[in-house]
């Protein structure tokens, strides 16, 4: 049963949408006390055999994601389709959010992206409907969390890191990226540096 669950998780993870415990129970394990033990054992198998970590990102709703626990290899990264470019855009967005204090308003984010010739209303040569990519796909995959700001008219939203971003990368990594791009030492931004090192 553990190996069935491992198979199930690996296939479900293809879409990168968080996996719910209820789905695991419906399709593979029955409900009941054995459930957590089976999930734990599946997690150990995933770690030992594949080097993947099963992380519960929502303790109330019991949803899980898989992340890569192997040390980063120097080689080529083989991703399908436009994955790499999307990760590029995502990295830039996450960097902007962190450097600006972990939360930004949608207006501020799009104003910044415009500087990179990325416009919410305009079809992008690489990304297509960028607004959809950012507000729908990135949030569905839990890379970003978008919440409405109360009492704003017209409604405004704030953008923060989602739980997948918290697990797959780190403030330190992102600060290093910014430092690399700007040709400065990460300590140049003292407060961000100390937050990233905490």
């Amino acid at each position, binding site marked *: 049963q553990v190996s069935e669950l491992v198979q199930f998780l690996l296939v479900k993870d293809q879409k990168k949408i968080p996996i719910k415990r209820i789905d695991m129970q419906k399709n593979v394990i029955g409900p009941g006390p054995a459930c957590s033990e089976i999930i734990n054992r599946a997690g150990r198998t995933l770690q030992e055999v594949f080097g993947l970590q099963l992380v519960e990102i929502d303790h109330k709703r019991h949803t899980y994601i898989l992340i890569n626990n192997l040390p980063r290899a120097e080689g080529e990264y083989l*991703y399908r389709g436009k994955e790499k*470019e999307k990760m590029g855009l995502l990295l830039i967005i996450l*960097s902007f959010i962190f450097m600006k204090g972990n939360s930004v308003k949608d207006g501020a984010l799009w104003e910044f992206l415009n*500087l990179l010739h990325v416009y919410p209303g305009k079809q992008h040569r690489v990304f297509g409907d960028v607004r959809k990519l950012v507000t729908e796909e990135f949030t569905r995959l839990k890379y970003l969390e978008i919440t409405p700001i109360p009492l704003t008219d017209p409604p405004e939203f704030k953008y923060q890191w989602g739980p997948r971003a918290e697990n797959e990368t780190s403030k330190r990594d992102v600060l290093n990226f910014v430092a690399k791009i700007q040709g400065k030492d990460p300590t140049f931004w003292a407060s961000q540096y100390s937050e990233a090192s905490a």
Partner: protein
Amino acid sequence: ENREAMLNSKSNRLTEALEEANKLFDGVCRAREAALDAQFLVIASNIGKEKANELHSEMSAFDSTAFAEDLLTFMGINRTEESDDPEDVPSGFLRSDAWQTMGEEAPKYFRRAPTFHYMMGSSKSEPPVPKQRIERQRKASRGKAERAMPAQLKKMEESHQETTEKEVERILRILQTHFENDPNTPISFFDFVIDPNSFAHTAENLFHVSFLLRDGLAKIKLDEDKLPVIEPTKPSGRGEEDSRAGERNQVVISLDEREWK
């Protein structure tokens, strides 16, 4: 309008706007204008509040405009070069591979689990890792995946199975066609499976050919130079079972990316 510009801690635009509003108010004599003035005050005070928030914010000043410019440079738009090259696109446009450059850099910062696909095995989705420990993990993972597979056959999508079969059939047909044209020359095995442009595709070919061998539809022999060659087996009746049992040999061929090059 221009909220970001006003919020920029270095700008005095908010103060200037307030001063201008004050001056204008002196000229006001109608209620409607007073109402507009009141509206302006509300917006201005909201902005003022945000600015105050930014002052209290723990973050060191981050110049996003400079960041954006540096990103554009990183992605390949270099302002100083533009005037020299008449073929270059006018400023303000990114070269078509700009985001690809970004795409090469970005994955280094994420620990994303590679997506799992039966057909591709591990060569397409995982980066080539030289460590011994991890090589063993990959072989073990393939073994475990196959053992668990029969249990899951009902649940897994059939499309994966079908595509593999179609691919195997296609490869068999290619082999047979070649043989019809030239019955006495078996093809060099390596010529047959290696795709000079894609290591991943080569691995796929090996995978599909292994099915043909397993089912006895093709066979591999060593030629005079001791190099492997592959040829289809002639279709035979039921009485061939002894030869099938006798001729099976297990050969492990290891081919990594360096050798392939």
